[in-house]
């Protein structure tokens, strides 16, 4: 660890991994509701479990991003974090908010209350008081990181990272705007959801990847940074108007069908570029970095993101196709592989890279970590395949033949069982990953660890 204040990242990563565990268990639980629908249905209904699953996903990914920023910005800016104290306060607020969310959902506290009750729009169900907490924490974060960057060396990596983080926080403000007109509600809801995962988060992902490749391969910074700009340019040029692929059937003008189809099809480009760029950098690089697991996760992220977001996204993004697949298990298949490939994997990559450094060790538990990579990636890939089959059946029977939603579920049951099995592999992989990060059996390399 070059800078003492990087240690902040350690606590962010630990918290992120804890919430990751909750998310995995939540997912498996939701998977159970599909194959044993009466099981616990009246104790905690499916919608509550699903909210826990998706919200904890987003929270831990953001915690990971914050941790990544606190880890890499000091190295890039060549100075300590402006205020480690603020960073810990920020973490405290986020943990408190997360606990508040879990309790509010599980016990259905204050239903309908404007400040304390859950809000009930997908992914942004958090009660208003938690949303406010998130905004306060985010502002603390942006202040802290921006001050650090401004006072130090400015690089393309911190530039792009900061743009992404500022953008995602500003977009979150739309979560306070909930018009009574459902169409307008949906239109601006996508400002958050789509412009996060297919805009600002891509900037964060690309800059983390660039940082990792710089460290792991030893390629010239000039080359990495130039390509970083090229990649994020293609991301925003396609992704912003690509929002149109959610505007086909929700009461918006028909021109979105063409704008959305064309620009979202181009969204494949940045994901393809990230994948190609990563492999080319590894081939060009001469450094033989000992942290092989971090390299595996970084390459895995770029590759699986290309398949999950790029290929599975393209699969249903043209409006002629989307007319039939919209809101089926096809969407669930894509959502899982895209989120896993892009944002879960890039987080696990930076965690894998940073943890040994933060703990003052040589890379440890590499084999276990790599096994966890294959378990998780294999599990998610299998889950995506079976959901795609289920979605194909659903699309045909429900959308083409017009058979009733509930009646056709029977014919998809086998795939739901396989999803459940795939989920088991993912969760085992996740537990193995967390274990590999936390537990070290050998002695530290120096007499006492660095702090």
């Amino acid at each position, binding site marked *: 660890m070059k800078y003492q204040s990087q240690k902040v990242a350690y606590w962010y990563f630990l918290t992120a991994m804890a919430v990751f565990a909750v998310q995995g268990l939540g997912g498996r639980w939701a998977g159970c509701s599909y194959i044993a629908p009466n099981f616990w249905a009246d104790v905690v209904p499916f919608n509550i479990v699903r909210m826990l699953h998706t919200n904890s996903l987003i929270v831990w990914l953001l915690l990971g991003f914050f941790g990544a920023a606190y880890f890499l910005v000091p190295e890039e800016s060549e100075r300590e974090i402006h205020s480690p104290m603020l960073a810990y306060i920020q973490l405290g607020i986020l943990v408190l908010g997360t606990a508040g969310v879990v309790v509010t959902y599980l016990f259905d506290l204050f239903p309908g209350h404007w400040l304390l009750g859950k809000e009930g729009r997908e992914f942004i169900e958090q009660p208003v008081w938690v949303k406010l907490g998130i905004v306060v924490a985010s502002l603390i974060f942006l202040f802290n990181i921006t001050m650090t960057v401004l006072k130090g060396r400015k690089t393309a990596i911190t530039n792009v990272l900061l743009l992404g983080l500022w953008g995602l926080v500003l977009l979150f403000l739309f979560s306070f705007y*909930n018009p*009574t*007109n459902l169409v307008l509600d949906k239109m601006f809801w996508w400002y958050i959801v789509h412009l996060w995962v297919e805009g600002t988060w891509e900037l964060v992902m690309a800059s983390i990847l660039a940082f990792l490749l710089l460290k792991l391969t030893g390629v010239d910074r000039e080359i990495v940074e130039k390509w970083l700009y090229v990649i994020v*340019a293609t991301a925003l040029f396609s992704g912003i108007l690509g929002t149109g692929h*959610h505007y086909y*059937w*929700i009461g918006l003008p028909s021109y979105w069908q063409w704008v959305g189809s064309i620009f979202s099809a181009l969204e494949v480009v940045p994901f393809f570029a990230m994948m190609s760029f990563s492999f080319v950098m590894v081939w060009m690089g001469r450094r033989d970095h000992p942290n092989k697991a971090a390299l595996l996760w970084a390459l895995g992220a770029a590759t699986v993101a290309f398949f999950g977001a790029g290929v599975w996204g393209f699969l249903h993004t043209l409006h002629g196709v989307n007319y039939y697949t919209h809101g089926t298990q096809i969407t669930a298949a894509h959502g899982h592989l895209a989120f896993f490939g892009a944002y879960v994997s890039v987080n696990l990559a930076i965690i894998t890279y940073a943890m040994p450094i933060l703990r003052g060790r040589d890379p440890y538990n590499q084999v276990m970590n790599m096994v966890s990579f294959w378990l998780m990636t294999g599990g998610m890939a299998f889950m995506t395949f079976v959901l795609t089959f289920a979605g194909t059946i659903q699309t045909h029977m429900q959308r083409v033949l017009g058979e009733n939603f509930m009646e056709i579920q029977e014919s998809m049951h086998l795939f739901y069982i396989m999803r459940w099995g795939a989920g088991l592999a993912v969760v085992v992989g996740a537990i193995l990953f967390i274990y590999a990060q936390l537990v070290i059996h050998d002695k530290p390399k120096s007499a006492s660890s660095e702090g």
Partner: protein
Amino acid sequence: MREVMTKTMARNVFYGGSLFFILVFLAMSFHSVGYVVNKSTASAEITEEVALGKHVWEKHACINCHTIMGEGAYFAPELQNVMSRWGVSDDPEGAFDAMQGWMEAQPSGIEGRRQMPQFNLSDEEIRGLSEFFLWVGKVDTQGWPPNDAG
């Protein structure tokens, strides 16, 4: 490659181009809002009942089991067109009765069938929901869903 494009050029293209696309997107969004207000949702008024219905819909996080206009969760039926599926699109009283009947009958308790919880809604809230779904059913969604199954 270094000769073809420098880092500074790449950066400027990124900033300039992004700004351009943001402006285009904002202009299109602006136009779309006008279209929503004056065209696609103009045929039905958003009454207090519709607004209450939307609030009930959010209060109980129905979206995390159901889709509406194809967005949400994939555990339970699409509801944008539930009123036409039930054949009560043009009959507010029939819609209310059907909604009340449905809500009272949950959970079905049928073994091996997915369950919808009992929400203990008041008549006012049920009226809100039926009016909300009648309103949603009148939005011009470019011909989606393909059929009554939703």
